[in-house]
């Protein structure tokens, strides 16, 4: 999209945000009754649903059971109506499989799987509307769903996608910014310890800028974690009011 400047001289982006501003984050927990844990999360125009089943007995291949911890099984899929052009293959193609693997890896690092040996935890995430930052929104939604399911985690897992334009890091990219050839970095962070669960970067970026970009991503993730924390406490309060405690 030539001609659309991603960062104007006054420091405003395409949707009017400043460089370090995140999109509006709204979330709801416990949206489904069947699942052990579920959450719906909107970050700007990207909407994702996450559902968690488990921990339960290993289904499918018994041989994959781990004797000392739980196996985490993730599936990422995009609804066919989520993108501008109808998606022909919602899951099973390489990108979705890779995303599922990344999600699995992220949550294996964060969930305390040692507490549930020989069992399985399923995390299903579906993107209902895609406007950039798919991976980050999935991770945030899945974190809320895992908390809703009551599975212990080391810390919130917060993710954010940042880009680099004109020597400035832009936090929380939208689709127009992502496809504009901007170098984008997706980072999943456990905020309290500053540990990076997943780091993924595409497109060219000079080595000297890497540190600034990672720093910006970490700050953005910490911002996300504050919002998620608020959501969880709110949900807990509502739930306790309903049960009359």
């Amino acid at each position: 999209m030539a001609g659309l400047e991603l960062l104007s001289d006054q420091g405003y982006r395409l949707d009017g945000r400043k460089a370090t501003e995140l999109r509006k984050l709204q979330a709801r927990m416990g949206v489904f009754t069947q699942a052990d844990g579920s959450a719906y999360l909107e970050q700007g125009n990207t909407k994702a649903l996450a559902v968690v089943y488990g921990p339960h007995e290993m289904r499918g291949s018994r041989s994959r059971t781990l004797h000392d911890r739980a196996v985490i099984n993730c599936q990422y899929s995009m609804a066919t109506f989520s993108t501008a052009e109808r998606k022909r293959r919602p899951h099973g193609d390489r990108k979705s499989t890779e995303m599922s693997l990344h999600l699995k890896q992220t949550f294996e690092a964060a969930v305390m799987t040692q507490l549930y040996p020989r069992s399985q935890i399923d995390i299903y995430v579906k993107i209902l509307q895609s406007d950039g930052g798919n991976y980050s929104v999935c991770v945030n939604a899945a974190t809320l769903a895992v908390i809703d399911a009551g599975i212990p985690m080391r810390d919130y897992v917060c993710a954010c996608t940042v880009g680099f334009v004109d020597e400035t890091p832009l936090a929380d990219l939208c689709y127009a910014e992502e496809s504009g050839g901007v170098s984008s970095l997706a980072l999943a962070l456990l905020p309290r310890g500053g540990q990076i669960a997943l780091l993924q970067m595409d497109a060219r970026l000079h080595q000297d800028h890497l540190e600034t970009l990672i720093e910006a991503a970490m700050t953005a993730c910490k911002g996300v974690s504050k919002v998620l924390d608020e959501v969880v406490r709110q949900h807990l309060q509502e739930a306790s009011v309903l049960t009359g405690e």
Partner: protein
Amino acid sequence: MKDTPLSNCERDFLLKAIEEKKRLDGRQTYDYRKIKISFGTDYGCCFVDLGQTRVMAQVSCELVAPKENRPNEGIMFFNIELSPMASPGFEQGRQSELSVKLNRQLERCLRNSKCIDTESLCVVSGEKVWQIRVDVHTLNNDGNLMDAASIAAITALCHFRRPDVSTQGQEVTVYSPEERDPIPLSIYHMPISVSFAFFQQGTYLLVDPCEREERVMDGLLVIAMNKHREICSIQSSGGIMLLKEQVMRCSKIAGVKVSEITELINEALLNDRKARKAGGKCGFAESMPQERITALKKDETPVEMTDVTETANGIIQKGEAAPQTVPSPVVPVPGVGQVGQGLQNSWGLEDDDEDDYEEEKNDNSGDEQVEEVTKMDVGEGDVVEISDIEEEEVVILNPEVPEKPKNTGSKSHQKGAAASKKRQKK
């Protein structure tokens, strides 16, 4: 076929060695294995050896209709084949996790970084563009397929020549290599990926893990860079938690390694160009008689040869005199010949005692020389006795120890048996 699982002692051994900064093949923490690049007869065919890991990349091109949303850009297609040839754990045709990972990583490293000018691949905008297809086949897996595949892919792309075309309005003429020389692709930069393996929850890190190290690693960080120190892609995998400082350090190391490898690639391309210009035969078939193609060929190991004669003489002198020759046959009765004393009775007659054996042994050690050779007298009437007595000493793994040296046995038997027992006791 399922991979042989790694035993716990192997795993512990590897982890222990890594803690002491030692690797199986003696490399340092940041060392790469030896990289060898060779080319095939066709343009665009390249073999890369990273230690024992072998991959082959082949580039081919075809005129197709472009994608609708990019009418004046060519198409790049990457494919990594994990064939069962490379490792028994790979299955033909099944899209395993590793295959998805490698494919996506290669795509991200080469396609998203825009290393090739796709607009130059356009022939007729909106109708005909070149589709460049890079197929990487893994031939032998000894760890770190990602790096080998990325080196092979970019080298093959640099080596490739596509046919020349000319357009007259809507008509497109493709010239064969005989009519017009094929032209190389326009490559902006060469992204090369460097893999870092993490162990013990990120405490130790190794560059270029071999297959054993890959099995015990906690996670992998792959950084793709070019020689201008631009990072083309970073991907962390495995359930490890990284710190920002670790990532920064890895990117610095990657910068150094990438410039070395780029040097190597350019040299290889230059050599190949010279060889082709000189008209010499080149390619896959030629490298076979020169034994360059054998996968398991060992490189020449440097051996210290300066004082080999003295060392050899020393060893020979310290060595024991040659064993007794077999005595000439004794003929007690016509038609019957006896050669030697015959073997020790191996039927395990237990009436004797192990205590006797101890005393005998101690006596024996008194009279014989303690200076024994490095070679033992193996095979001179040494037998294995299997008996059921519980008080007997446990003799482990040494096949030539008889329990009770009989009096009928010759002196050399006793010597040999007691000597080996004595050595064990030591």
